[in-house]
């Protein structure tokens, strides 16, 4: 398949996969660097190891201390951040065009030559333990963590912070070993958006990552989802009950993905969406209600969540289910048109932001292994019909539901 004109896409000789979206006239450059390893690669007894690796990889290299690295980024005003997810580590930065090269040099140094100072590893473990404690004060995040286990199973459903027992076992040697085993050029996807000349970037990346690592070539393989259609409740003294549920959807790569996006927009995008109208505007049951989807490489999961005071939780749960089920019965042409128009318009307005282009391209590389033109994505959305939505719902019914409630009261309602 040929690469659309606005993009550059190439697998370099050192194994790095590079994609660039040329945006002439922009005054910033956004970069997404993705290493194809994540929580799924942690040993069972060392959960939290990927997070500790992510936290400490910037705390020193063979050439710079952690603070000196941070100073070097700041000397160029580079906005940078890192994260770790189920199947990838991400390093993203945003800078003025003249600093793209030096910013790459710093990232290459960090990724290739981390020293993982023992003291930094110990501190990262201690802080992760404290963050685990802090998580108990975030009901929404806590409910999401519980539901992820039920949604994805013991491997894909891991939380970045692991648990207190496994965190305590992690040492500097484990961190170093994890990096040595799973980091390397062959697992690296690099995406840039901005006023760039690809040939210069290619030269630099070829040089920077030559001979970097030799991880097994399984970083691009999908890991299976192990969905559990169960309902669990955790008692916790809260003002509100958290109600979260999910059921399997389709992978990003599926022909039905555009249909799922439209469906979710009808359900939850904007104040005229069904959940907002029925649960909040008509009944005043909640302040927050929403639906969203997540996508490990191997599949998709649709989530619905709300928080409400305990005496209203049964009614809220019932209305949430009713609204999901009702979609198959009475979707209107008006809401279909509105959902599609909203998705397309927001894509276009957010296109003014360079950072949004890099994020979109990084997602294309991760799921499809190639850039996909925006026009094609928009055409897919435009082509969705009410019959497509009904067909999707009949092929993917929410007959297997996984539910987590967190709060002072367990649900009575059947679902």
């Amino acid at each position, binding site marked *: 398949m040929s690469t659309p004109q606005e993009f550059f896409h190439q697998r370099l000789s050192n194994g790095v996969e590079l994609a660039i979206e040329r945006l002439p006239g922009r*005054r*910033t450059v956004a970069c997404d660097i993705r290493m194809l390893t994540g929580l799924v690669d942690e040993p069972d007894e060392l959960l939290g190891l990927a997070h500790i690796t992510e936290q400490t990889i910037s*705390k020193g290299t063979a050439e710079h201390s*952690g*603070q000196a690295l*941070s*100073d070097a*980024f*700041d*000397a*160029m*005003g580079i*906005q940078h951040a890192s994260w770790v997810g189920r199947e990838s580590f991400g390093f993203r930065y*945003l800078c*003025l065009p003249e600093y793209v090269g030096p910013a790459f040099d710093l990232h290459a140094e960090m990724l290739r030559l981390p020293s993982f100072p023992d003291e930094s590893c*110990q*501190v990262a473990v*201690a*802080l992760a333990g*404290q*963050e685990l*404690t*802090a998580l*108990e*004060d*975030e*009901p929404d995040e806590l409910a999401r963590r519980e539901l992820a286990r039920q949604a994805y199973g013991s491997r894909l459903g891991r939380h970045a912070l692991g648990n207190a027992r496994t965190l305590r076992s992690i040492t500097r040697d484990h961190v170093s070993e994890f990096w040595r085993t799973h980091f390397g050029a062959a697992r690296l996807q690099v995406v840039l958006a901005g006023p760039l000349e690809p040939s210069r970037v290619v030269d630099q990346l070829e040089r920077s990552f030559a001979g970097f690592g030799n991880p097994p070539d399984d970083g691009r393989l999908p890991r299976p989802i192990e969905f559990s259609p169960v309902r669990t409740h955790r008692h916790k003294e*809260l*003002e*509100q009950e958290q109600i979260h549920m999910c059921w399997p959807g389709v992978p990003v790569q599926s022909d039905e993905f555009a249909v799922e996006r439209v469906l979710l927009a009808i359900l939850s*995008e*904007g*104040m*005229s*969406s069904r959940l*907002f*109208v029925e649960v*909040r*505007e*008509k*009944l*005043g*049951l*909640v*302040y*927050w209600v929403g639906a969203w989807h997540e996508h490990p490489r191997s599949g998709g999961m649709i989530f619905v969540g709300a*928080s*409400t*005071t305990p005496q209203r939780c049964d009614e809220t749960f019932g209305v949430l289910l009713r609204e999901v089920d009702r979609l198959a019965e009475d979707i209107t042409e008006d809401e279909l048109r*509105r959902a599609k*128009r909203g998705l397309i*318009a*927001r894509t*276009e*307005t*957010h*296109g*003014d932001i*360079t*950072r949004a282009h890099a994020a979109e391209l990084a997602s294309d590389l991760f799921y499809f292994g190639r850039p996909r033109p925006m026009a094609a994505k928009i055409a897919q959305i435009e082509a969705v019909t009410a019959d497509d939505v009904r067909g999707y719902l009949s092929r993917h019914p929410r007959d297997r539901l996984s539910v987590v409630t967190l709060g002072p009261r367990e649900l009575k309602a059947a679902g």
Partner: protein
Amino acid sequence: MTFIDQVLPSGLRVVIEPMDAVASAAAGFLVRTGARDEVPEQAGVSHFLEHMCFKGTPKRSWHDITIGFDDLGSTYNAFTSKERTFYFGWVRRGDLAAQIELLADMMRSTLPPDEFATEKNVILEEIAMSRDQIEHHVYDLIHERAFDGHPLGWPVLGDEKTVARLTRDEMHAYFSQRYHPANMVLVVAGNVDPREVLDFAERLCDGWPASAPRPQRGLPGRFAPGTAMLHLERFKQHSVCWCYPGPALIDERDSEAADALAAILGGSNSRFFWNIVQQGIAPVASAWRVDYSDCGLMVLFGFCEPEHAPALSVALQREAERVTREGVTDEELGRVKNRRRTSLVVEAESPYHRLTQLADDVDVFGRPRTVAERMEAVESLTRERLAEYLERWPITRDGLMVSVGPRRWPEA
């Protein structure tokens, strides 16, 4: 052409920043009223009113309003703070007129009586949700104590009692006094034709009723140092804050220095990050500037496990003393400037971000500020300026210590 700043015959001020390099545009109505403009028995009315403005107009039902936004594919919302209420939408450039028309219509809300009770339930749920977040308790206690007896000390959401007893008629009276052209500004940023926007806004807002000016805001009383403790058994982490008087937003010179100091102490790659977080004392340690038009605070704070609370408190004070004694370095100041340079360029490519900044500037300074002007203000900072600032706004003595969480600390 940098800005268009014009007052229409109706008294409505319109501020526009044309941005030729973008494809979208954003518009918002700034209403210069917020929690500090309320009477105590109506605490929360500004925020509740913001919700009600989405509920109906002479031309539209609540459903029409929501469909109006979503038909445009708008990125939209509204928020209420202590000093202002802001309604906005960000759309493709061709949809700007429709977006402004919808927002303008909402500014003439009928506050439909039959929606009032349902929306009250939504607000009560929002209050309940905020009670499950320790940060809200910390925020509220800081305000309650630092602005004791002053409306700035009351929560933006109000509380269960004030919201429950508020009537639609009381809200309507408040609405009539505050949502009039002289107390509002239409702000627009993006790929726009200013002449079109002005003509359109003039037609839309013609005939909007005038009203008496918003009552004068009073200054809070003298800041009272001391200790405030809130024991909340059900949370697992503890928050420790040291609060000191700080400059008002209108004090442009000291505000710039305060922002730089907050970044040097508590931003990314800051003193707190390396000397507190990376020492394993607390996962969160930062500096936060509480800034209002005529007063402010500097808050040094962190969240930690309860047993670390005393160590966190000591560490925050130690860093405050060190920066006061030794000053900041040229490198630290340089980092602040470099980061700001990038963030301002980023802001300049987003109509939405320019819109919110314009609303801030117009509200506080009475005029829009260019990106270049704001960069110049940062560039002018020196070590000496920060030293002078710390003399004027000390962070080592007469502070208010706020402790919130499961530990009864400090002991009486």
